[in-house]
């Protein structure tokens, strides 16, 4: 059951990220947020690492007016120094083959 939910959530995220021009990504520091969304999935917060090495914070939610899933808030993390010692961030970098270079970001 949880696998099904995870797969559905991942599919929704993939679609929302594709709209933002992000095709290759890894998630890290994700957390279920306790709010049930349409489709039987749960709101989710976390970070997206893109293939270009950029990091965005996100919150998967439901826009009741538009009747669609949204990433709100969605923000770029310019200063990555806070993540430099984070094991999940490094796991995500390895997943995308980015290695450990450039973790300080562009401030």
């Amino acid at each position: 059951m949880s696998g099904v939910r995870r797969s559905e959530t991942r599919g929704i995220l993939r679609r929302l990220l594709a709209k933002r021009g992000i095709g290759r990504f890894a998630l890290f520091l994700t957390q279920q947020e306790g709010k049930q969304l349409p489709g039987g999935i749960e709101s989710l917060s976390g970070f997206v690492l893109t293939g270009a090495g950029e990091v965005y914070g996100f919150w998967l939610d439901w826009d009741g007016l538009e009747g669609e899933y949204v990433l709100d808030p969605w923000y770029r993390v310019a200063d990555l120094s806070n993540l430099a010692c984070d094991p999940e961030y490094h796991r995500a970098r390895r997943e995308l083959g980015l290695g450990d270079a450039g973790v300080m970001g562009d401030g």
Partner: protein
Amino acid sequence: MSRLIALLSVALLLLAVAGCSAPPQAPAVSSAEREKYAAEAQWAPGQLEAHFQKHPQGYGTLEEYDRGARDTILKGTAFTYLDRESGQGHLGFYDGSSGRFTALTLDGRRIATHFRSDQGDRYVRQLPESTYR
């Protein structure tokens, strides 16, 4: 007697094959560890603001919300669970008297969320591999 042992062995083998095992045990988190996590755990960049925006229940300011998250670490029942999306282990604290829940990464260094569950302890019990009892 030997027949009984054989029957028990077969029963245990069948349970193991069916994926059954002893329920996961809640972690032993010492008072010192709680105090350390409550004092030193950090929100990842932008996450405190985002979480306060989404889960303001009962809090007037960002500082109150952050303090509520840390108070729950001190007061709540400690347990572990797996994040459904990443499969990573998390450390949870649930305060039954307030219904408040704080989640940390397993190393206790990051606050992953804090909110009041509108399902009471049913929410933390149904988290994947939850050790909450």
